[in-house]
């Protein structure tokens, strides 16, 4: 996929996070230029992982409670979950390769 599906409904968001496996949530805002640049990177990493990595995006302004819960102070922020547990974050732009290294290291801990 070249774009990420947007998590809009709270119940779907909760279920997505709770699902087993590795999940990357790309927290963005509509007006963030760097967010547009990172989205294809996130999508490519997930697409090339043969299902090992799931990825979605979530609008920080539309879901301010979620952003506050995870202490998102700027966008883009990537939140990494494994088996429903939050394990790490990265803020700002990441290349796909840097993302693969980050996810590989963080998810292996």
């Amino acid at each position, binding site marked *: *996929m*070249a*774009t990420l*599906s947007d998590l809009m409904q709270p119940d779907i968001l909760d279920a997505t996070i709770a699902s087993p496996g590795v999940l990357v949530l790309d927290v*963005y805002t*509509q007006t963030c230029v*760097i*967010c*547009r*640049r*990172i*989205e*294809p*990177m996130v999508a*490519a*990493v997930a*697409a*090339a992982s043969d299902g090992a990595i799931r990825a979605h*995006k979530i609008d920080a302004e539309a879901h301010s409670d979620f952003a506050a819960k995870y202490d998102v102070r700027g966008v883009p922020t990537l939140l990494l979950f494994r088996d429903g547990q939050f394990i790490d974050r990265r803020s*700002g*732009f*990441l*290349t*796909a*390769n*840097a993302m*693969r290294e980050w996810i590989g290291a963080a998810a292996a801990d």
Partner: protein
Amino acid sequence: MGQWSRDADTEPFIDLVPIEKARGVRKELYDELERVRGKGRVSNLFKAYAAFPELASANFRRLMVLLTKGNLSVKFKESLMTALAEANKCDYCVSFHATALRGAGASDEEVKAALEFDPDRIGLSDKERALFNYALKANGDPHSIAPADINALREKGVSDSDLIETLETVNTGNNFNLINGALNVGPDDFLSYMKGRGASWKQSA
């Protein structure tokens, strides 16, 4: 957030003068394009650019310098422009640069790696693989480039000229992607490889 190029059945927003109707400075440009690229291979991009023929000629000369001079391989530069086209969601540009990348000796798997922003799976030198990631980072957020990024490149033997050549490849790719996207310029009739990528993404999304 982020649309792929418009559907092919939507007309371009600018007049793409066909080869047989070109006159004056526009014809000179088309003749130069055919001389370099082959009979009939005047791309839609340059047909659009030719609305300002002198600028189009200058841009084509600039493109030729980028692709024929410098230290970095054409395979590297076309890999990068293929990746940028994917990032910019430009159907036409993916098809054009993926075709050029195949022409530079890349396999289908290497083209796929470029579309997945993964230079480690492309047959490039260590220096070029590092420059590929640097270019994507510069494109994503130029102000995020830190001294450590440059030092890491220097350890791979990257020169000042290599940096300029890489960044100019990014500029060129983005420039062409923008012209094609903003003017709804679709793929050339002579392209077939990787054509319709936006439609395939929409189906799989």
